[in-house]
C-alpha cells in the first residue's frame, strides 16, 4: 500500500501539468489542436484510409472546427471512440468535441450534462435484408427474424419498441462494431441488419455484392446526428454550432472551396462577404475567432454539399441521396440560421 502514496503524488503531478482551464477555446489554442472524438471506423462518416488519414462527414466537421479556431484544418487529433465510452470521454475533458454519429435525445442533452450543437446528418433507423429473402417487402414481414444490431446505441430501444408495438417476435443478435455486424450479417447469422439508414448504406456498400441487398422502406425512428460538447462553455458551443452553420450557409450561397477567395472580393453580395469575413462586420470577433474563420473552413474543408458528396454522396460507395439532408431550398430540412 506504500506505493499508493507516491502514486497519488504522481497522479497529482501529472494531472497538474494538464489542468484544464475554464475555456475550451484557449485550451485548443494552447494545445494547437482540436481533439475530436470520432467513430472507430464507419465508412463515410469517420474511417482511416490505407495511409492512416481520417476521412468522412464527421471528420470534415472536426476539420472545419479546427480551421475556424486554429486556421488549419489538419490541426485535429482524432480520438476513435466506441459508443460505450464516448460520453464519459467527452465529460472528462479528454476531447473537445464529439462528432460520432450521435443521436440527439433529451436524456443525452439534459441528463448527461452535454450540449448538442446542431445536426450534421438527419438519419433514421432502417432495415436491410438480402433480396433473396422472399416475401419480405416491408418491415412488417419480419416476424420471427434474427436481427443484427449494434449495441450501445439508441437502435436497440427503437427496435424493441417497434417489434413490440407490431406484435412481432425477433431474436436480437448484438454486435459491438459495424465490422462485426457486417461479418455476422453476411455469414447469415441474422436475416436483417438494422441501424441508422446512412450506416446501412455504408454497410451495404461494404458487402461483397451490394445489389443483393435492399433497404426496406420503413424508417422507424428519428435520428438527428450531431456534434456534442460539454455543458458550461457557451463560447465553445457557439463555435461548434457556427462552424457547422457556416458550411451550410456556404452551400446555400453557392460558395465552394474553389470559388471562395474569388467570391469574397465580390462586393455585390453582402451575405457572402459577411460569411467570408470581408464585410468588416466583426462577426468572427464575436465568436472569439479571427475574421477569416469561415473562409478557412470553406477553403480548407469545403461547404456542406461538397463534404456530403465527397464522403457519402452518389460517387462514393455509399451512394446516399441528399434526402432530408438537402438544403431547405431543395426540399430538405438542412436549414442554417443566417450569418449576420
Amino acid at each position: 500500500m506504500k506505493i499508493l502514496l507516491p502514486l497519488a503524488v504522481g497522479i497529482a503531478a501529472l494531472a497538474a501539468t494538464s489542468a484544464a482551464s475554464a475555456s475550451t477555446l484557449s485550451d485548443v489554442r494552447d494545445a494547437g489542436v482540436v481533439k475530436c472524438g470520432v467513430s472507430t471506423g464507419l465508412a463515410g462518416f469517420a474511417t482511416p484510409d490505407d495511409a492512416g488519414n481520417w476521412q468522412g462527414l464527421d471528420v470534415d466537421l472536426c476539420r472545419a472546427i479546427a480551421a475556424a479556431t486554429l486556421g488549419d484544418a489538419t490541426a485535429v487529433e482524432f480520438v476513435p471512440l466506441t459508443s460505450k465510452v464516448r460520453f464519459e470521454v467527452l465529460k472528462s475533458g479528454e476531447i473537445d468535441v464529439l462528432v460520432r454519429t450521435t443521436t440527439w435525445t433529451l436524456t443525452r442533452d439534459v441528463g448527461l450534462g452535454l450540449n448538442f450543437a446542431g445536426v450534421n446528418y438527419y438519419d433514421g433507423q432502417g432495415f436491410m435484408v438480402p433480396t433473396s429473402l422472399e416475401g419480405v417487402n416491408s418491415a412488417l414481414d419480419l416476424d420471427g427474424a434474427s436481427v443484427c444490431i449494434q449495441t450501445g446505441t439508441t437502435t436497440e430501444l427503437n427496435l424493441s419498441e417497434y417489434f413490440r408495438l407490431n406484435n412481432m417476435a425477433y431474436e436480437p443478435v448484438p454486435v459491438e462494431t459495424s465490422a462485426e455486424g457486417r461479418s455476422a450479417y453476411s455469414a447469415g447469422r441474422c436475416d436483417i441488419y438494422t441501424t441508422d439508414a446512412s450506416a446501412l448504406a455504408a454497410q451495404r456498400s461494404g458487402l461483397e455484392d451490394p445489389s443483393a441487398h435492399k433497404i426496406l422502406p420503413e424508417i422507424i425512428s428519428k435520428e438527428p446526428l450531431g456534434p456534442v460538447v460539454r455543458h458550461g462553455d457557451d463560447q465553445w458551443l457557439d463555435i461548434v454550432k457556427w462552424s457547422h452553420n457556416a458550411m451550410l450557409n456556404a452551400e446555400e450561397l453557392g460558395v465552394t472551396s474553389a470559388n471562395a477567395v474569388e467570391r469574397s472580393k465580390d462586393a455585390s453580395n453582402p451575405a457572402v462577404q459577411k460569411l467570408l469575413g470581408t464585410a468588416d462586420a466583426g462577426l468572427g470577433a464575436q465568436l472569439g475567432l479571427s475574421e477569416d474563420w469561415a473562409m478557412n473552413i470553406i477553403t480548407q474543408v469545403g461547404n456542406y454539399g461538397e463534404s456530403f458528396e465527397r464522403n457519402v454522396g452518389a460517387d462514393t460507395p455509399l451512394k446516399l441521396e441528399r434526402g432530408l439532408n438537402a438544403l431547405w431550398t431543395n426540399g430538405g430540412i438542412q436549414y442554417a440560421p443566417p450569418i449576420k
Partner: protein
Amino acid sequence: MSEQTREYPVGESPELPAPNHQPGAVKWVMENLFSSIPNGIVTILGLAFLYMVIPPFIQWAFIDSVVLGAESRQECNAINPDGACWAFIYRRWDQFVYGFYPADERWRVNISFILVAIIVAIALVERLRAIKGIIWVALALVVACIILIVGFFGLERVPTNKFGGFMLTLIIGLTGIFASLPIGIVLALSRLSTLPIFSIFATIFIEFIRGVPLITLLFIASTLLSYFLPPGTNFDLLVRVLIMVTLFSAAYLAEVIRGGLAAIPRGQYEAADALGLSYWKSMRLVILPQALKISIPGIVSSFIGLFKDTTLVLIIGLLDPLGIGQAAIADVKWIALSNELYVFIAIFFFIFCFSMSRYSLYLERKLHTGH
C-alpha cells in the same frame, strides 16, 4: 527385476541370453506408437487428425495465398479465391507496426526498437548483467525511448492516441512488465510484513485487483478515473491504461513472489538476523535473491499473461494490432478478412509468448542448483 536381485553362488550363474535389443526406427515405432491395440488406434487417429488439419492449412496459408500484387480483396479473389489474402497486411504493414504514428517521425520508433532490443539483451545475456552499473545504462535507455517516442526536447510531440499496432503492444507490455516488478515485490513484502496495517492494506489491494476482470479495470481507466481526480484535470488515456495494467500485473506478481518468499526456509531469515542485518538489508542481500530465483517461472508466466492481456485495450478503443486489423477489415476494400487477421495476430503473440516461456524453462534449469 527379480532376476537382477537374485543372488547366485559364485560360478553358478546361468548363461542368460543377451538382452533383447532391437535398435532403430522399427523398435521405436513399436514401443512408442503401437505398443498395444488402443495405443495403435490412438496413434492412427492422431495421425489422421494431423493429415486433415495440416495440409489444408498449408495450402490455404502458403500455397494458395496472395501476399503481393493485390490492392483489394476482389483482386485477391481474382488471383486465387481459395487461398488466404495476406495482401491487406502487406498494404497496411506500417499501420500494424506503428499505428498512426506520423510517417516522418517513425525513425524515432525504429531507434527505440533497437534500444529496447539492447535492454532485453542486457537482461538476458548474463555476462553483461554481472557488470555493475548496467542497471543505470538500462534505465538511461528506457528514458531515451520515452523521449524519442513521446517527443521531448525539441522533437515534435506525438500524441499518444497516434500510437498503435505492435508498437503499442510492446509499450504496454514492457512498461507493465518492468514497472510491476518493483511494485509487486513491495506488495509481497508488505503482505508478509509483521506490521499488521501494511499486511492488511496489501492484502486488500491484491485481493481486490485479482478479484475483478482486467476489462472492468480498463473501463474504469477509460471512463471513471476523471471522476476521482480534481475537477478539470485529466491526463493521457495511455498513461491511465499503463497505470492500471501495471497495478493489475503487480497484484499477480505479488502473489507469485509471496509464494517464493514463503518457500525460503526460516533458517535463512534467522541467519540474516543473526548477522545483524537490518530488515531491508536482509531482504535485499539474503532473502529476495533466493525468493526471486524460485519465483522465476511464475514471474515469467505472469508476464506472458500480461502480454496477452494487452489485447483487451481494443475494447476501450486503443488501436492495438487487433484494433488496427479490425479497422482494416471494416474497409470496403478488405472486407471480412477476419480469418487472415486472427491467424496473423495469433502467430505474432505465439512467437513472443512461446519464446518467453522457453526462456523461462531454460533459466529454471540453469538456476536449479539442486538441494
